[in-house]
């Protein structure tokens, strides 16, 4: 069965997008990337150190991977827009994961600033993938602004709490049947990824759950399988939930 993931006119086989942060070393990161089957990885934009100790981090990435720069560390729309412009200039890519954070403790998104930045960047020709809080109305506004997908969180960044908002994600899926929804942040274990996909997410973006695992390569493979399982389950249509039992074997005809 062909079930390609279409995003901004580009076709992906994998519905898993993964990060490049927090790995213990580059070899471990590369092995995890390979095992994940992901075709797109996120990277962060940062000031170069002026002590001359720069190494080209990007050289450690599989050249076949699409690079998705992010605006992590930005706390207002202006900084996010500037960061996106710098990323485009350095990499020659229009793709940007837009992230505008509201406060440093929760790292929860500032939806208002995110929308403001999205409007500016879309006008400048960027392919804007916005990370935001799981609000249906904000999702609609971001899509109206020209974002090709929306990326609601499942739980705070790096928390590994799993899907804390299944109702909101389900509502978003049902009310925006044609939108591309990528769950970004909060996954801790493969079952979380499967749940998000079962709820109808089109793809999942994760970093810490793989990078901080004891064996990242193995966890990356587990995540790949979970995303595929969840996707298949969503397409299959789940059975209804019932309060009471429903016998699988015929009750009539049992010996007395």
């Amino acid at each position: 069965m062909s079930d390609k993931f279409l995003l901004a006119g580009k076709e992906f086989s994998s519905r898993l997008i993964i990060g490049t942060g927090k790995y213990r070393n580059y070899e471990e990161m590369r092995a995890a990337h390979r095992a994940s089957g992901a075709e797109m990885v996120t990277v962060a934009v940062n000031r170069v150190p002026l002590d001359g100790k720069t190494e080209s981090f990007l050289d450690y990435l599989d050249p076949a991977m699409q690079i998705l720069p992010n605006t992590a560390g930005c706390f207002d729309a202006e900084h996010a827009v500037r960061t996106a412009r710098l990323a485009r200039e350095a990499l020659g890519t229009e793709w940007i994961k837009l992230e505008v954070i509201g406060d440093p403790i929760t790292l929860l998104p500032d939806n208002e600033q995110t929308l403001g930045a999205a409007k500016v960047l879309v006008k400048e020709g960027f392919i804007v993938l916005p990370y935001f809080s799981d609000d249906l109305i904000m999702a609609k506004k971001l899509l109206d602004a020209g974002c090709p997908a929306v990326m609601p969180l499942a739980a705070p960044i790096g928390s590994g709490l799993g899907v804390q908002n299944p109702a909101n994600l389900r509502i978003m899926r049902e009310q925006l049947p044609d939108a591309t929804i990528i769950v970004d942040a909060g996954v801790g274990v493969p079952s979380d990824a499967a749940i998000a996909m079962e709820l109808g997410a089109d793809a999942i973006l994760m970093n810490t759950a793989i990078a901080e695992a004891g064996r990242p390569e193995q966890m990356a493979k587990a995540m790949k399988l979970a995303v595929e399982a969840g996707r298949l389950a969503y397409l299959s249509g789940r059975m209804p939930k019932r309060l009471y039992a429903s016998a699988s074997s015929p009750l009539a005809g049992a010996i007395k």
Partner: protein
Amino acid sequence: MRIFVNGEERELDGTISVTELLERLALPARRVAVERNRSVLSRADWDTELLTEGDRIEIVHFVGGG
């Protein structure tokens, strides 16, 4: 001449271009981007863009992130 590079104050002798600044800082020109006073500079302008007193320069590259 005094400028700020990534928030750090630097004294420069003479008038230099962005390309020359990168050379003096021993920074690779590949896969970096430069901003001058909050406006991104096109790579094509690095040779001709001359720094002036008080400029605030940001030079960025890529690091691991999610």
